[in-house]
């Protein structure tokens, strides 16, 4: 729209100061994490705080990867369970999303709402019975156990998201494929699901974030330290006198954040499109 009103100076200044403040507010804590992670112990305690360290060091990162450090092990557990969660969630959510979008059956609407409602229950309430259940079926301290638990929290969002995308795929395309001899299941795999790719990618990303960030499940359903993921691992690691090992803590934080930021940079547009398409009725 060509806005004929001339923006007043006050208006412009207000808008741009809000934006400038936002940028600083969003980025500075990140920057502070990074700059602290390359400071020496002495540098961290210097007053006034140094914006960028006068003595640059990678010692904090070397410590993380030292032979006796558990951090690489935590990292590996996080990565494996997060990738497992993405795979399981994407497959289950695509199937369920397709059925709920395209097929008509009894309780369809009730199932949709029930799936949404499961999201509201606090994880912490589930933990006690889940711990007892996992102990019985020997899922404590396993990747499988964590993947199943994470999946249950990523699924509701994924099912709704993928269902929404499939809803917008025209029925005629599917019918044409079936006419060409694809069969219903063939049409689903070759035509419908590929067209719902943005929704599937967004689901995968959310599943990854959910799993990677989850603290409660690995804090309680994993009791052996070698099987912990990064979030509970950090809490175990940075207690006692290490609670003020700021350099090490920020280096670990950086390592924990890095994969997320990389993935996010790669697929940002899918994420934003997927999120808002479901939320806003156009």
């Amino acid at each position, binding site marked *: 729209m060509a806005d004929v009103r001339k923006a007043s100076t006050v208006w412009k200044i207000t808008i741009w100061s809000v*934006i400038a403040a936002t940028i600083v507010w969003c980025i500075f804590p990140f920057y502070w994490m990074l700059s602290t992670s390359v400071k020496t112990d002495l540098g961290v305690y210097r007053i006034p*705080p140094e914006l960028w360290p006068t003595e640059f060091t990678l010692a904090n990162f070397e410590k993380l990867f030292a032979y006796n450090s558990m951090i690489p092990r935590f990292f590996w557990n996080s990565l494996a369970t997060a990738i497992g969660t993405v795979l399981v969630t994407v497959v289950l959510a695509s199937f369920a999303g397709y059925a709920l979008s395209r097929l008509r059956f009894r309780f369809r609407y009730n199932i949709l709402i029930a799936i949404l409602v499961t999201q509201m229950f606090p994880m912490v309430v589930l933990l006690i019975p889940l711990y007892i*259940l996992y102990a019985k079926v020997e899922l404590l301290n396993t990747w499988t156990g964590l993947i199943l638990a994470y999946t249950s929290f990523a699924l509701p969002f994924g099912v709704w998201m993928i269902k929404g995308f499939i809803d917008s795929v025209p029925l005629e395309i599917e019918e044409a494929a079936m006419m060409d001899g694809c069969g219903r299941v063939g049409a689903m795999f070759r035509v419908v699901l590929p067209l719902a790719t943005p929704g599937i990618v967004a689901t995968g990303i959310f599943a990854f*974030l959910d799993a990677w960030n989850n603290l409660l499940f690995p804090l309680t359903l994993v009791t052996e330290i070698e099987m912990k993921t990064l979030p509970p691992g950090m809490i175990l690691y940075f207690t006692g006198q290490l609670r003020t090992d700021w350099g090490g803590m920020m280096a670990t*934080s950086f390592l924990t954040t890095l994969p997320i930021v990389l993935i996010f940079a790669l697929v940002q547009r899918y994420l934003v499109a997927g999120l808002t398409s479901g939320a806003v009725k156009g």
Partner: protein
Amino acid sequence: MNRRSTVSRPLVALPGGLRVPLHAMLITPALLVLAGVILYPIVSSAVLSFFNYDLTSPQSHGFIGTKNFTTLAADANFWLALKNTLVFTFGSVAASLLLGLAVAFAIDQVSDRYSWLRGVVLLPWIIPAVVVGYLFLFIFDVDVGLANFILKKLGVIEQNQPWLMRANLAMFACIVANIWNQTPFYILMFAAGLKTIPQDVKEATLEMGASRWQEFWYVTLPSLRGIMVITSLLMVIRNFNNFPIIYTMTGGGPAYDTTTFVVYIFRLAFENFQLGYAAAVGFIWCIVLTILAAFYVKALSKDF
């Protein structure tokens, strides 16, 4: 009604000559996972709340009726947890809502060349909550924290404050960390909402000679009402269940002063090992959440 389906209930032939409806095959795996990890524990937790299941005194286990609930009514920490949950949640939601609105509106006003701003703004949202906790633990540290340094420079405080060791200050610090973490979500939702305001409405406003402030108050804000309601409800529910930020920053302390419901349940179960009592607190909590969830579902199905 839209035609969405060609055959309503196609059957699939399995190797054993069995014919199973396709929809059942497709949704059963997802429902099984949800039933095992969410439904079963919820039911089982509700049952547990009527039992004494204190791991420190195994000889006294057994059904005790509603005793857990009467204990709970007289438990000062329970009411403190309720207060903390409300302060934490509504403090975070109100502040994030206002900030989110202001930023989304500012971003909407500048030209599309600055679309990278959206990426920058989302950054705090994608960081793992534990990292957010540690980052702000550091920023609010009594000796080396930036918060003390900056506030002292500005003359707001004279001496270093032990932020995380004083009840009100600790809660404030947790809320600040939480706002930092979640405001991007509001910005994203509001920015999307601003895009849906129809062009002709904007043009009509323009023709009527409305100023920018008038447009904001009388056109923009009212059309965002639906999104504001849905986003806030969703975030109230999310914040009611927020665990990692508080647990990382204060562990619920000092004493129980930043212990919200979820932290309280966790501490009861995994620090005091009072499983039955923890389940009872969880039961009450689930009822509150179910009521809220009902509002949420209603708001979602309503056309704003």
